[in-house]
């Protein structure tokens, strides 16, 4: 702990004490090597802290040097969680340097440089994070990159479609813009996590069970909340705000159980299969796409060929007419909720592999993309939602070839706004007056 010594001494009582201190410092230096301090000078009033991570994995024993005004200098090494913390004497600018030679071989700082300037503001503390990645330049050809993005985008789009068609069906039959749909997505992933990690079921059992539980969850929500509210005659706006409240409550319930960090499902780092050129997909990506396609095909068959599917479309078209022609609207809506929640749960499991990782607000991160997909395809039309999702998914991934990765969702959201302005009925929707 005492290794990290710096050269700022308080006004000392004389040469002897100065010499003694220097001697002690030297002795500590000699005896405490190699360094393992993750905190230094914690008696100073202000704090500079940070995190060193390689793709979300913390890196230990990375040397960080903090220098500041008046020759202030202090060294620390990151702890097992990749964290470090130093105390600094003044509200000033400090330079934080990450010693790249202490990183594992073959990786480097990927965002920004290894030297950062931080300013200790009035809050008295400041943090800076280093993101580490493979330190090689990307030499893949544009065509290969494009194909890889397209494949990833299709995978993302298919996963998004599972979430969107459910939300779209719910909107079509009940006119509810369900913000809590995001939490139905998270629910599936969280259930898969509990079944596969806490109860230690094999993953091929855990995922179907998680989807099943999601369906039960959908049924419970309809029976416990939405059906009574429909009976009560709440307006669409009121219902929407209720769904926002439900979304908030559920989101923090998930955080209560799984914490604020990211947890992984088993098998999330599967091997890459090279396809051609520099293009490769992981086993999980391929399985995920196959599952999505099979499920969507089954859903399409259900919607087009079965009695309940036809009844669903009839209600989406005109609920009063459907009710008048003898369709049990409540029963169909209940089935729609079960299917929507099951699909959303499956989407959540696939999204957990796509991201990768399960986080308490993962559903909320794609909620607006789901809305974008639904609106793009045409509100309330299931196949519109499918088309919309594929467009949004590929657009998000391909656009990151040109725009920075942290802005890739912006393209989809701008598209959402533009669609609502110029063709609010969507691609497959019917033109009707919505003004």
């Amino acid at each position, binding site marked *: 702990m005492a290794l990290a010594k710096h050269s700022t001494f308080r006004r000392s009582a004389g040469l002897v004490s100065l010499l003694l201190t220097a001697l002690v410092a030297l002795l500590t230096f000699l005896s405490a090597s190699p360094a393992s301090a993750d905190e230094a000078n914690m008696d100073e009033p202000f704090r500079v802290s940070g995190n060193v991570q390689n793709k979300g994995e913390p890196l230990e024993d990375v040397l960080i040097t903090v220098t500041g005004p008046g020759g202030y200098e202090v060294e620390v090494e990151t702890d097992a969680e990749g964290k470090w913390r130093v105390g600094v004497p003044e509200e000033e600018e400090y330079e934080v340097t990450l010693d790249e030679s202490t990183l594992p071989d073959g990786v480097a700082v990927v965002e920004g440089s290894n030297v950062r300037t931080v300013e200790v503001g009035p809050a008295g503390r400041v943090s800076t994070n280093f993101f580490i990645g493979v330190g090689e330049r990307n030499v893949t050809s544009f065509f290969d990159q494009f194909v890889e993005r397209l494949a990833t985008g299709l995978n993302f789009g298919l996963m998004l479609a599972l979430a969107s068609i459910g939300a779209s069906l719910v909107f079509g039959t009940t006119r509810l813009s369900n913000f809590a749909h995001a939490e139905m997505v998270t629910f599936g992933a969280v259930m898969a996590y509990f079944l596969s990690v806490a109860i230690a079921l094999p993953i091929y059992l855990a995922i179907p069970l998680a989807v099943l539980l999601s369906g039960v969850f959908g049924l419970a929500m309809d029976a416990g909340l939405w059906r009574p509210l429909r009976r009560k005659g709440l307006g669409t706006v009121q219902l929407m705000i209720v769904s926002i*409240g439900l979304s908030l409550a559920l989101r923090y319930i998930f955080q209560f159980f799984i914490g604020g960090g990211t947890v992984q499902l088993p098998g999330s780092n599967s091997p890459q299969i090279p396809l051609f050129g520099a293009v490769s997909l992981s086993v999980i990506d391929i399985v995920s796409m196959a599952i999505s396609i099979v499920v969507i095909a089954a859903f399409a068959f259900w919607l087009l060929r079965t009695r309940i599917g036809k009844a669903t479309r009839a209600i989406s078209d005109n609920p009063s007419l459907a009710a008048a022609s003898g369709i049990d609207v409540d029963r169909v809506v209940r089935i729609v909720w079960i299917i929507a929640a099951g699909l959303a749960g499956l989407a959540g499991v696939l999204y957990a592999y796509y991201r990768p990782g399960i986080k308490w607000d993962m559903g909320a991160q794609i909620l607006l993309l789901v809305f974008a997909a639904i609106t793009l395809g045409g509100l309330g039309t299931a196949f519109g939602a499918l088309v919309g999702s594929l467009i949004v998914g590929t657009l998000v991934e391909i656009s990151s070839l040109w725009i*920075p990765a*942290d802005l890739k969702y*912006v393209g989809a959201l701008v598209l959402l706004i533009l669609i609502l302005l110029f063709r609010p009925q969507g691609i497959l929707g019917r033109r009707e007056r919505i*003004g």
Partner: protein
Amino acid sequence: MDWGQILSNTASSLIGPATIAYALAAIGLSVHFGYAGLINMGIAGFMAIGAYGYAISALTFGLPWWAGFLVGIGASIVFALILGIPTLRLRGDYLAIVTIAAAEVLRLLFLTGEFDDVTGSADGLSGYHASFRAANPIPDGTYGFGPWTYNANGWWVRILGIAIVAIVALIVWSLMRSPWGRVLKGIREDEDAVRALGKNVFAYKLQALMLGGVFGALGGIVYALPSAVNPGVYVTSLTFFVYTALLLGGAATIFGPILGSVIFWVLQTFLSNVLPALATSGILPVTSTQASTLRFVLVGVILMLIVIFSPQGILGNKKELTFVK
């Protein structure tokens, strides 16, 4: 458990900068949602515009604090125009989705590393206080009593914030009893009827959007005044929290947004102090991090209960329709 400390923190949040900021944003939202019937789900975007407008004009352009206020207000008017001109013709829930998307786009633009020099990306902005604190008329020192003891800068933020709330509430009160306000409420109740009377509904809605947007931006500025601008604050949850405060107090009332924000923050502060304390002293069988997430669960549940059972809020009039069907 240190009840003295818990109660003192709770009492202090009565006039905290966050409470004042929420009150301003909620008043803005009451103009949008309560009086004009516009479902603006992007109030967080307006707040971000205000906060970043203020901080950037001080840090990048070196403007004095009052000019920062004007920049924040001006930027929010521009944002309201960009948002409003194309979207105000849309049906209610469409408007909600467009505004929430626009606010997210804005947040992502503030968050991205591309404009790091100006926006500070994920670290946000800080250290823009010099001009504001230099203008502080209160001499240095600590003032107040009991839980309300702050230094000169603390009081300067609070006094200015409360003054802004008072002025804004006065503006809304006088506007809503004017012919302009009656037309606005008419639009909320029945847009077509007002249009049939020859009023330009679109212009009224746009004016309401700009007015409420300015109040939202002022809320953002007050939020940023005491400490720093952090992009993690202006997420969609912020919009939902402001909605909770607004609906709690009463959407179509003058004092509802203020009362709602005070209750919201007093409750939040109380729970954020008492729940972890209960957990550490073993009364609640959960960890203290788990205990502090419980208060957000409660926010969600309260929001649902208000909308279902008492959509007019505490101060609202049940006869006055506060939800557009």
